């Protein structure tokens, strides 16, 4: 049984004026213990709302549908009290902006020991010792002294380490990281990615990484799910997806990236024309159709379901066009 199994997840936001907006539609994935899953997409693709929905963190006007079973229990129908025993304990979360996700009025010690005192009923002294150990394990130098400091006394990379340490305190089985390195410099990003990789390898923590950076996914994730306009367009192992993307959007995304290994920089970058649709603007057909180079009449009329890609065993794709056509275009 997978650790986490999400089926047909949908997130709908009601609006004071106008029709409700579907931010996420029909998202399914499963996460085995010790695996790493990357959820990739551009801003507004629904990648963050997907995990927010799992943890019951949606805004007040958001409604969730579908199921998400963690060890056989549906997270989406749990009471707040039941959910509180799981999130922050069995499922840890780290956010993009380490400054705004830490409480500026409390010392790191207060913020870290709170979790242990609450979830584990640990006495304060023991909680403090455990917090220091965890800070050391994410390589914060001089942890015993720095635990008494406030968030503003830490640099961006150190704050993100503190966030990771907080998530690790209860030794979660799943760590959800929402754009954990987006606000960081590349040399610091490399340190944080290395840290996450170690966690996964040494403690067997399963990781869901939400990012827009294909490079970060390539370095860390076993499986990848690509989202566009609230829907999954492609799902495959990282090795398969990067070697042979089967959806035109994935292909476009990979081609649009400038690379350090490009030999000929004078060639223009390949672009995806136009802009992603606004929520509520998606019609009956494929959401990517207006920007797609392979688009046909059928693509504009009916939405392709997510189905196995013919000839590519471990890949799922939502596209009407034959796989061969996309693969050929990649090598053209």
């Amino acid at each position, binding site marked *: 049984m997978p650790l986490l199994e999400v089926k047909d997840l949908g997130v709908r936001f009601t609006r004071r004026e106008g029709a409700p907006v579907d931010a996420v539609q029909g998202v399914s994935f499963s996460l085995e213990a010790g695996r790493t899953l990357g959820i990739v997409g*551009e*801003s507004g693709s629904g990648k963050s709302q997907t995990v927010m929905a799992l943890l019951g963190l949606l805004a007040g006007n958001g409604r969730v549908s579908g199921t998400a079973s963690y060890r056989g229990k549906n997270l989406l129908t749990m009471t707040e009290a039941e959910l509180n025993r799981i999130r922050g304990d069995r499922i840890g979360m780290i956010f993009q902006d380490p400054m705004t996700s830490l409480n500026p009025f409390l010392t790191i010690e207060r913020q870290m020991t709170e979790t242990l005192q609450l979830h584990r009923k640990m006495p304060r002294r023991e909680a403090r010792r455990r917090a220091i150990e965890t800070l050391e394990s994410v390589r914060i130098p001089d942890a015993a002294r720095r635990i008494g400091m406030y968030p503003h006394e830490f*640099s*961006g*990379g*150190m704050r993100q380490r503190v966030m990771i340490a907080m998530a690790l305190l209860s030794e979660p089985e799943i760590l959800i990281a929402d754009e954990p390195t987006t606000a960081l*410099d*590349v*040399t*610091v*990003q*490399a*340190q944080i*990615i*290395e840290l996450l990789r170690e966690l996964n390898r040494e403690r067997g923590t399963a990781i869901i990484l939400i990012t*827009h*950076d*294909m*490079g*970060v*996914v*390539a*370095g860390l994730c076993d499986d990848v799910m690509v989202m566009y306009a609230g829907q999954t367009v492609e799902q495959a192992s*990282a*090795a398969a997806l*990067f*070697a042979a993307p089967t959806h035109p959007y994935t292909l*476009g*995304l*990979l081609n*649009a*990236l*400038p*690379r*350090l*290994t*490009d030999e000929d*920089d*004078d060639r*223009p*970058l*390949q*672009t*995806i*024309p136009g*802009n*992603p649709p606004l929520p509520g603007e998606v019609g009956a057909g494929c959401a990517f159709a207006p*920007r797609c180079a392979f688009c046909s009449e059928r693509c504009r009329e009916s939405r392709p379901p997510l189905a196995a890609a013919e000839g590519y065993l471990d890949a799922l794709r939502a596209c009407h066009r034959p796989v061969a056509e996309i693969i050929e275009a990649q090598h053209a």
Partner: protein
Amino acid sequence: MNATPLANQNAATLLSVENLKVQFGVPRGGFPWSGKTTLRAVDGVSFDVRRGETVGLVGESGCGKSTLARAIVGLAPVASGSVRWLGDETVLPASTSSTTRDTSRLRRDVQMIFQDPLASLDPRMTIEQIVAEPLLTHGQNLARTDVQRRVLTMLERVGLNAQHLRRYPHEFSGGQCQRVGIARALIGEPQLVICDEPVSALDVSIQAQIVNLLRDLQRELSLSLLFVAHDLAVVKAISHRVLVMYLGRVMEFGDKRDVYRTPRHPYTRALLSAVPVPDPAVERARRHLLLRGEIASPLNPPSGCAFRTRCPDAIDACATQIPQPVTHGANATRVACIRVGHAPEEAPLANS
């Protein structure tokens, strides 16, 4: 080599920056009598931009790259050093020798594109007013119909059209706002455009559109660009020469091909090594050159070489002297490191 023909080494120097220093006074303590200490945001930077070339300016946050860009257009206080325009006159610092006329010329010839595309457009102005404004401020006494015609031509050039003229910035996406920002920068026919992280806030698919647009415009109008960014792959795609900064100082400055293929400064090597490659086969086989810690505080920079506290190749001598830039190789790359050639050469990328 089929490099852009305009970007040859003999092209005239448009802008030359000589030993530029920008300093800010920051309070030392929480009280008015605590006194002030000096933050050296830019600490003795020299470089030049030739006609029709793109100079990429890279470095981590806090390295002074944006401050340097802003100082060139007079938006940050220059403590010492000079900014020369077309080789003949010192235009900055403006207070000393130059007249008002000199600065206004620089203002017209040098334009800027900002990072946050929406925040850099006045929300109460229509797109037409925003794009027309530089023509009106620089007092070229154009007829109204001329202004309208030029605004429309410019908008079409950046991929917008007449329908957008009467709209307001909030009606546009980030990529479209950046197109408006580019139109506003280019309408006065500047010679140099300073782009401060112009694509960092954009999604990948939009980012490629804007990079291509800037590159096309540059070739057509033989513009020079100073392209400030932290994304090394984007800088590689657009630049001819690259300047690597760390803690207010230049670490390496040279031809793009040299800097990316044979980085000489340990910091350049570390930066390139840290960029993740979007290919699992390559990325997982690579050995990353992980740096210790983070950039030091510019309030209290290390003695000697600014990078030595994180440098894998540092020796005792690095702490005693500030390394001066020395030229290396056929393309005269300037490298500020006393350890060049001593450290084990390791290509940061498996690049055939």
